[in-house]
């Protein structure tokens, strides 16, 4: 049997992923995290009497802390597996990816383990985040003169 023919056979037996269902779940859970973030911003700016911008930073720190803590408790992986993009696209997922890698590699040493491998998943997010920020920054500069 030729390779192409075999690959067709494999395709026939490959189950469809429930994209619509996953999308809806991700939308709802991601949305809840967004609402939680907005609530935290309102809460901090009102009760700590700080600007919305500073409250945003406080909100990010809070969510990262909660994300890391839940990873360490050991059940966040099951939630991620269910909610998928709803949990790993928001900042909670970023914290979770670093924390889970750190947990896996801490036994390989502080430098050779945590230091070298903590960014295994998050590293590419940071690299391409910085690169795309740079690219879009230039586009903005060229189109709007950087005054917006």
């Amino acid at each position, binding site marked *: 049997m030729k390779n192409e023919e075999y690959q067709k*056979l494999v395709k026939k*037996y490959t189950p469809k992923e429930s994209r619509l269902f996953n999308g809806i779940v991700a939308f709802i859970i991601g949305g809840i995290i967004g609402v939680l973030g907005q609530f935290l911003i309102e809460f901090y700016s009102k009760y700590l009497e700080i600007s919305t911008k500073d409250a945003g930073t406080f909100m990010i720190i809070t969510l990262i802390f909660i994300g890391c803590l839940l990873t360490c408790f050991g059940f966040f992986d099951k939630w991620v597996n269910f909610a998928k993009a709803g949990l790993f696209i928001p900042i909670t997922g970023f914290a979770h990816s670093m924390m*889970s890698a750190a947990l896996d590699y801490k036994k390989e040493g502080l430098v050779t383990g945590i230091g070298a491998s903590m960014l295994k998943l998050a590293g590419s997010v940071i690299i391409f985040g910085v690169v795309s920020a740079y690219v879009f920054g230039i586009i903005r500069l060229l189109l709007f003169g950087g005054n917006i």
Partner: protein
Amino acid sequence: MTFKYNNVYISEAATVVGPYEFNGPLSKYYDKHYKEFYFGKKTWEEAEVHILKESVELLLKKSKKEINNIDLFISGDLMNQITSSSFTASYLHIPYLGIFSACASSVEGLIIGSNMIENNQIKNCICSVSSHNNAAEKQFRYPVEYGGPKPKTTTFTVTGGASVLISSEKSKIKIESATIGTVQDKGIKNVFAMGAVMAPAFADTLYRHLKDMNRDISYYDLILSGDLGKYGKDIAKEYMKKAYNINLINYDDTACMIYDLDKQPVYSGGSGPACAPLVTYAYIFRLMKERRLKKVLLIATGSLHSTTTVNEKRTIPSIAHAISLEATI
């Protein structure tokens, strides 16, 4: 290449498993189980060595033998540089061969050992394999606590150690013949569909075995594939029919037998070097000893990739080795 054996027998076998396997349908057949993944050790890698070593110790105890009475230790696993096997061997102080055919390692070990016994080079040997879900996840996929979403065709690495003592002394189960497989590559790149990767190797080895031994597929009471999983099993059936015009009958897959696929969160079934031998040594041997099965063909399948070759988008080659077991009673 197929060998026929006249005086190689399965003396005894021992199995140790983790929590998911124990919660599966074959739980009562295993010799020992653990409720968590560390087994009192600090790391998963150490835990895998522990489970493998323990399966050897249990095997010696069950067969009432001292380690010094064993001529050879053959072992394989999934960890980089097969450290679980080699570290276990470092405790045993007997001659050791480390082998690798990924999830087909168990049968590779049995074939090497059987050939040496048949040729009177050794009297007996222990063939072992191990795998550990978390250690394998960490090495091959995402960090364990990350729980990255995976497609339905993914298989779930079995946690367990399986050891078997084979010797020239007569017993209830005979190793009758074996076929060394060829490496197949049908151009599949998806590492989350290992059933699709390995089905052609399974089919090819089965075909060669039947041809070399001049047998019809109905000769066997049961044909077991290593760890193709739910979808791989369907692919294997259709591929066998289309490519070799053979209807797979009396057939099952150990990946589907070790877990309850409807109730346990294991995607399309088990995988790992320990998957096929855990089912065979714990469950199938029992059925054979009870005369409920007489002739069994075990074809363990292995996917021969590394994380580097996958990242480099290379296609995944696969291997399958077959061993034919017969109840002598």
